[in-house]
C-alpha cells in the first residue's frame, strides 16, 4: 500500500515537472525566434475588424495602418493601453514593440453605433503563457485532487481494517 502511495506522489511530481518543462520550452523557443517588423493593415467596419485575429511573436515591432471603411472608428489595444482613430479616408497609425505576451483584445474606442461596445478583435503575442500556465494549473489540480482522494480513501480503508 505504501508503495502505491509513493508511486502516486512520484506521478504527481513527474506531472508537475513535465508541466514546468513545457512552459520553459515554450519560453526558450520564443526567445530563440528573431524579432521581426510586422506591417498590419486593419480595416474597421461596423461592427468588426479585418483581420479580426492577429498573431505576432514577442519582441516583434508591430506597425499598424488603421483604416475605416464606413464611419469614425477607434482602435484601442488592451494590455498595451494604446490607441489610434480613423475616419473614412483619413487613416490612423500605431507602432509598438510587442513586449508583453498573451492574448489582448483590441476594441473600437469611438462610439460608432449600437453594437459598438462589442466591436473587438484579438492580438496574440506568442508565447501565450497566461493561457498555458492557467491551463496547466487546472490539469495539475485535477490530477492532484484525484491522487489525493485515492490516497485518503486508501488510508481510511487501512485504518478501518486495523
Amino acid at each position, binding site marked *: 500500500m505504501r508503495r502505491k502511495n509513493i508511486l502516486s506522489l512520484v506521478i504527481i511530481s513527474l506531472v508537475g515537472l513535465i508541466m514546468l518543462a513545457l512552459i520553459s520550452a515554450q519560453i526558450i523557443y520564443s526567445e530563440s525566434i528573431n524579432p521581426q517588423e510586422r506591417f498590419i493593415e486593419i480595416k474597421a467596419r461596423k461592427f468588426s475588424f479585418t483581420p479580426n485575429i492577429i498573431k505576432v511573436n514577442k519582441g516583434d515591432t508591430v506597425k499598424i495602418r488603421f483604416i475605416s471603411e464606413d464611419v469614425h472608428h477607434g482602435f484601442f489595444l488592451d494590455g498595451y493601453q494604446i490607441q489610434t482613430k480613423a475616419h473614412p479616408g483619413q487613416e490612423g497609425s500605431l507602432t509598438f514593440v510587442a513586449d508583453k505576451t498573451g492574448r489582448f*483584445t483590441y476594441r473600437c474606442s469611438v*462610439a460608432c453605433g449600437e453594437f459598438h*461596445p462589442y466591436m*473587438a478583435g484579438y492580438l496574440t503575442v506568442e508565447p501565450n503563457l497566461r493561457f498555458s500556465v492557467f491551463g496547466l494549473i*487546472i490539469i495539475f489540480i485535477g490530477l492532484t485532487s484525484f491522487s489525493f482522494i485515492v490516497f485518503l480513501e486508501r488510508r481510511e480503508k487501512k485504518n478501518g481494517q486495523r
Partner: protein
Amino acid sequence: MAKDKLFGLIDINWRFELTRFKLIRSLFKSRWFPLTIILVNLFLFVIILLAGLLGGFSPGNFNFGVMMVWILWWVLLMFVLVPVFSRIWCMMCPFPIFGDWIQRRRLLMVAEGKLGGLNKKWPKKLRNMWVMNIGFLMTTFFSGFFTIKPLATFILLGSIILIAFLLGIIFEKRSFCLYVCPVSGFQGLYSQFSTAEIRRKNFDICKKHKPKTCFVGDKKGYGCPWLVTPFSFKKNTYCGMCLECFKSCPYDNMAFNIRPPGVDLLVKEKRGLDEAWKSFIMLGIAIVFFMTMQGPWGFLKDMVRMTTWQGWLTFISAHSLISLVVMPGIFLLFSYFSRLLSGNKEISVRNIFINFSYTLIPMGLGVWIAFSFGIILPNGSYILHILSDPFGWGWNLIGTAGFPWTPIWTNLMGYFQGATLVIFYLFSVAYGYRISKQTYPKTEEAIRGWIPILCFLTLIVIVFLWLYLG
C-alpha cells in the same frame, strides 16, 4: 465522527448567524424591511424604463436603462449578490410588487383572511424550472437587441413586470417568481453555491409549533409567499429571502446564516432534470454570449443583431442546440462512462446524470463571473456618463457627462478570468467527489465513477479558458 472539511480547512457544517445581532433581527422583523428597498428599486426601475422608452434606438452605451441593467445590475448580480447573498436580489426586486398589492390589498401591513386575486394553484406539471429554462433561453435569442437598444430593454423589462402582475392576479402568492421569472431560475441554481442562507434554528421548536405560522401566516407576517416550508427546507434554490418567516415566527426561530460556499450542492432533496438542464443552459448561454459579444467574429455579431433573418434563425438554432442538446448530450456520455467505470450497474444513468450535474454549479458561476469581467472592465466607465445624463438630454447632473470612455484594468483581465476559473473549478472538484460518494454506495465505485466526471469538468473549464484567454 470526523468533521467533513472543505479543502481540509472549513467544516461544511459551520454557520455564523447574523441575526443573532439584535439590530439585524429587528430589521428583519420590521414590516418596513425589505419594502423600503423595494420602493427605492421601483423608483430606479421607473427611471430605467423611462430611459429605455425615451432612448428608443439610440446606442445603448449612452443610455441609463441599458447601462444600469446589463452592465451594473448584471455584474453586481454575478459578482456579489448571488455568490455571497444568495437570492437577495429577489428580496429587493420590484417586479412582483403590483401582484403583491392586488393579493394583499395593501403594501405594508398584513391583510388578514384570504388573499385577493384569483389565488389559483400553479399547474402541477409546471411546478419545476422548465418554464424558466425555456423562457430564459428564449430571452437570450434577443440578446443582440436588449443589451444594446434602449427600447428593447424597455420592452423586455416592461413585459416581465406585466406578466408578473397578470400572474399575480391569477395565481397564488409568488407563483411568477417561483416558476416563470427568467431571472429567478439561474439565481436559484447558483444560490446553492452562495455563502448565505435562511434556515430554521431549532428543529424541536418547529416540531412542537403546530400552527406553522411561517407557512400559513399570522398577524405579523404572511405565510411563505414562495410556497416553501421555512420550518424544514434545506436548500436556497426556492427561498426568495422575502423575510416573512422572520416576522411570522413567534419563537424567533429563523436565522440568516453565513456559511461555507456550496454546501447546498450536497442536499439530495429536490434534485431533478429541470435543475440539471438549467446548468447546461447557463453554460451554453455563456459560450454563445462570449462568442457573440466579446469574441472577434463579426459574422456572429451580424447574426445576433438580425442583419438577415437567415442569420438570426441560424443563431437561435445553433444556440438552442448547444444549450439543450450538445452540452447535456456530452455530459450524458460521460455519465454513462462513469457508471461503466464504477462497475455498479444498479444505479441508473439518469441518477448519475442528475447528481453529477450539480458539480457544474460552482464552475458555471465561475464562468459567468469571468465573463462579467469582460463586460464591466471595458464598459464600466460609461456608467459615469449616464449617471449625469440619464435620458440623453444633454444634462450634466454630477459633472461626469463628459467623462471619456476609459477601459479599466483590461490589461489584467486575463489574469482575473483565469484565476476565477481556477478557483471555481476547485470548488467543483471539491464537491464533485462528495457527490460521487452520495451516488455510489462503495468507496471504490465512487472513486472510479468520479474519473469521467472529473475529466468532463477539466475539459469544460479548459474550453472556457481557451475562449477567454487562448
